């Protein structure tokens, strides 16, 4: 995406943001609260109006395209909150992820169970009854049902215990190994940047620092301002 200005209809929250991710790579967006990280993801996925600038996907301009179109184009989004259908079972949640697919649904469900093994036993349980970590797996599994080229994750480790955090990050690496690119917004900056091929620090709606994750971690200025101790 290039020089994106976007917002919720009132004041712009994003004021000129640039971001790019190749395939398959992990791009991590970090920054203080209110910097516009979640807004950025929503702008990419067509959930907000982009007032200026453009968003490209695989060579096509997708600025302000409807979410359903983006799903068919191979992009998936996992929101931070309310990201599962609570009254539907785990398996039904996955089936809903595959709504736009006509074939290979069962095979893909099997792959998801291989990737997130605790879900297999819970397949007939309503997603609302699962723990936070399991719900996050369902949410990501649902997004992976269309075998997307690009996965957008909004704070996947929010509210999870440290053990699950590590699990989620290894699962994200596993996802990239299958060939899916990931753009991830994270509050736990230190852990997230460790696995980042590209790291973007966002402050007050614009880019502040851009580099690979490990480089950002090693940079004393970045570490001091944004990463705590």
């Amino acid at each position, binding site marked *: 995406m290039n020089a994106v200005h976007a917002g919720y209809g009132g004041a712009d929250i994003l004021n000129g943001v640039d971001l790019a991710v190749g395939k398959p790579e992990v791009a991590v967006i970090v920054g203080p609260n209110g910097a516009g990280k979640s807004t950025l993801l929503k702008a990419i996925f067509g959930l907000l109006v982009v007032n200026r600038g453009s968003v490209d996907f695989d060579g096509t301009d997708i600025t302000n395209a409807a*979410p359903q179109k983006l799903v068919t184009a191979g992009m998936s989004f996992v929101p931070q909150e*309310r*990201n599962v259908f609570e009254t539907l079972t785990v398996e039904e949640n996955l*089936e*809903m992820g595959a709504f736009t697919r006509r074939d290979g649904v069962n095979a893909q469900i099997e792959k998801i169970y291989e990737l997130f093994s605790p879900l297999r036993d819970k397949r007939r349980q309503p997603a609302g009854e699962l723990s936070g970590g399991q719900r996050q797996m369902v949410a990501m599994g649902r997004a992976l049902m269309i075998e997307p080229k690009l996965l957008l994750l909004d704070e996947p480790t929010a509210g999870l215990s440290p053990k699950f955090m590590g699990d989620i990050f290894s699962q994200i690496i596993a996802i990239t190994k299958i060939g899916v690119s990931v753009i991830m917004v994270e509050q736990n900056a230190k852990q997230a940047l460790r696995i980042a091929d590209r790291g973007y620090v966002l402050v007050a709606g614009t880019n502040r620092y851009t580099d690979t994750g490990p480089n950002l971690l090693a940079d004393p200025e970045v570490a001091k301002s944004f990463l705590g101790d």
Partner: protein
Amino acid sequence: MNELVFFVNKVLIAGSIIGSIYALGAVGVTLVFGILRFAHFAHGDLMTVGAFAALVTAALFQQLGITASVPTGFMALPVAMIFTAALAIGLDRTFYRPLRANNVAPVVLVMASIGVTLMLQGVVRLFAGTATRNFFTVEDKDIYTVALPFELAQKKIVITEPQVLLIVFTVIAVLCLHFFLSRSRLGKAMRAMSDNPDLARISGINTELVVWTTWIIAGMLAAAGGTLLSLDVTLKPDLSFSLLLPIFAATIVGGIGQPYGAIAGGLMVGFVETLSVFNWAVLLRPFRSLTAELFELPTRVVFVPTEYKIVVPFFILVAVLIWRPTGIFKGRLF
């Protein structure tokens, strides 16, 4: 024994009939509530329009000489269901969808549906007048009687053919709905959208298709409920007002957005209503000879006089809202 037969006729059968009608209407209301997030006050009129469509089609069939072993009104039912489904979609596109596109508050949609109610009432009166209609002017209504083998039972269990058809239809409709919602992709998508509409959009679910399906199901069931009720009694143009309150009571009792709740709620409201207007003193009659010397048994024990029958669903509605607003099946609270 006669009294037991009386009870079966006046309570079990009558309660099932009216309960099924309420259930058919309530399912449509609850689906619209869950997926479109507003109280569709025009639902009673969808049922009335559906009944009138069936009446007209039945008259047409009779003109053309098409007959069968079932009442002509029942044969006209598929036509009426399709017509009402199309009408429901038409109403949505004309009135509700433009409002939704402007992100109005839900109460605005409720007001719009009240406007639609008045409009449909007017249109029906314009074309069909204000007279009460009967489906059975040309043919006769079949009445089945079942004689019980007990010696003491001189009275028979009476059930009419339209009543049998209604119960059979309701059972089949409930089963179809169940399989649709739990097994089919589109049914699951409806449940998903009712659960979390934003996530449904994000997941790529075709929300437009789900909305269409909701109106089709609601319209079809409304037409069936209206037509089958009119086959049982008569068709009055102001049918909608007398149906609307019980149907909303049933919807809320069952839990807003819960289709199975709507069915349970409809039957419950139907039975409570029937039990309230039933003359319980009839059941005391066998004991009259036993207590004759001691005291006089009352001849009339009725909780609610028949003319005030509408009080019952109103009372149920208020009671549920006070004590358990989420309903039996824990629906949503708006």
